[in-house]
């Protein structure tokens, strides 16, 4: 390929690459912009690109939707369900990675198949059970359910990180006189710490965005941000500046998490089928 032609392609690539990126991110950008507009500015036609920003929406949204409480619930539910899931998953992942047998492989596949069970199929019994035990609209119920929903993915992620540790390193440690617990402490944990971190981030992201269970089994007490946003659904018109502010505040943290862990997300969500 001639130099000129390849330079042209690179230029085209750059232009298109940026264009596509901006296009895809535009709705988010527009929403972020609206968050700082007054309701009047937000609803104006033609749409305003330049305006004097205000923070009034962020204040007002708390009144409308009790943002603070919902945000707190989101944080608590995401963090706890992820931590519990990791605590349950780590020993299982360790066994599956280093003591793999035909049965452990079957076990892993079974776990993954559970992930594919549509939540909607078990909505009714879960709902009725929760009603029976008076657990509707409690953070506890949401934490348990979110934890269980994400558990298979977390086991899988940890398993794949454990498997990346070359067996020889552990054998060398064995020869050096280290028993399993010491291998764990001095080798495995330091070497897989980044993996644990990415897994935790993925768990938090999945839990944070979880809307199905949240809408159906929580209300004002334990509702997370997903529910808060959903409650804007039926409002009429004059709320999108506030809606945008609430939305921005809800998705902002996740953006940061997500941008950091792109590659790990692919691995986790495709069960490592694509590296």
């Amino acid at each position, binding site marked *: 390929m001639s130099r000129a032609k390849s330079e042209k392609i690179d230029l085209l690539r750059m232009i298109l690459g940026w264009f596509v*990126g901006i296009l895809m991110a535009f709705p988010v950008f527009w929403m972020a912009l609206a968050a700082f507009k007054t309701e009047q500015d937000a609803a104006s036609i033609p749409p305003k690109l330049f305006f004097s920003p205000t923070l009034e929406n962020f204040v007002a949204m708390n009144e409308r939707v009790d943002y603070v409480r919902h945000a707190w619930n989101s944080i608590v539910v995401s963090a706890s369900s992820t931590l519990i899931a990791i605590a349950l998953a780590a020993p299982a992942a360790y066994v599956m990675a280093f*003591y793999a047998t035909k049965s452990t492989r079957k076990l892993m*596949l079974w776990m993954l198949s559970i992930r594919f069970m549509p939540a909607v199929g078990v909505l009714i019994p879960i709902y009725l059970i929760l009603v029976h035990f008076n657990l509707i609209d409690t953070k506890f119920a949401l934490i348990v359910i979110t934890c269980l929903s994400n558990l298979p993915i977390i086991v899988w992620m940890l398993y794949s990180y454990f498997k990346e540790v070359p067996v020889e390193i552990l054998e060398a440690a064995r020869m050096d006189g280290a028993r399993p617990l010491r291998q764990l402490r001095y080798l495995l944990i330091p070497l897989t710490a980044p993996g644990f971190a990415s897994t935790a981030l993925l768990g938090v992201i999945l839990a944070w965005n979880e809307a199905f269970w949240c809408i159906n089994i929580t209300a004002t007490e334990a509702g997370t941000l997903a529910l808060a946003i959903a409650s804007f659904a039926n409002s009429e018109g004059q709320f999108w500046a506030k809606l945008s502010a609430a939305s921005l505040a809800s998705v902002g943290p996740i953006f940061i998490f997500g941008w950091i862990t792109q590659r790990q997300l692919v691995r986790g969500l495709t069960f490592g089928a694509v590296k």
Partner: protein
Amino acid sequence: MKMMNTSTIHNKSKSPRSKQKIRVWPLLLPSVSVLAIWAVVPLVLTIWYSFQNYNLQAPPAVFGGLINFEFLFTDGDLPVVVMNTLVMVFGPMLITVILGLAFATLYDGPFPGRSIARLLVITPFFVMPTVAALVWKNLFFHPVWGLLAWAEKLVGLEPIDWFSSHPMLAIIIIVSWLWTPFSTLILLTALQSLDREQIEAARMDGAKSVSRFIYVVLPHLRRPVAVLLMLETIFFLSTYAEIYVTTMGGPGAATTNIPFYIFSRALMGFDVGLASAAGIFAILIANIVAFFFVRNLSEQL
């Protein structure tokens, strides 16, 4: 030539190695037992309820035999619901795969600012479905205040009320926007694992860029695309939040899919029996797809 391998197998030793002896069951038990309860108990209950005539507003539950299934399959809405479900699965799937492929090819080569541009493309994926749906509903699709309405007026067209006249299309657009980044990421990762030497060999063999794409790149993408399709099927089958905050399944049943159908019958119509029967139906479909996916995966473990 190097063999392509997108599997997670590594460390292929010639023979199994001896391991130190530890007791594995106590380590496996917590997660396994918890997942077993989560998997089995609700499923059993759903099956039980599907055979019950049980309306929450008029308890108690009475054994109803196959009445729910009868009702389900004679419900006038059911064919529409099933059709909607299929459209909601294959519509976004088509869009996300084509766009994903296009974007992945675009981002496969270096250009200044590529990482930032790539981050921008990924952005929609992190937006909560509820937020995404509402943003599109109010900031774009709204016939009075939406950007699209403004653009249409500029061109001299009547602004469309998307959610009244093209509700399904609107939902498909929202879902596609949310999931194209996912498809792009997967296909981009797959493209980047393609051995350059294969492409170079094809060039030496005289293949032009289009042929190179068809005969070298596409086959390499077969496995990731299969994974992508299966995953999207699973996720799109349970599209829910987007419907809830925009159309509530309407107008009529125009945008009701199976999950929403179950939701409306159970939590709005309070008919537990019917909703359970529909739930079984949904589970069956999901299991069939899951079976194929898991089998594909087990080859790589």
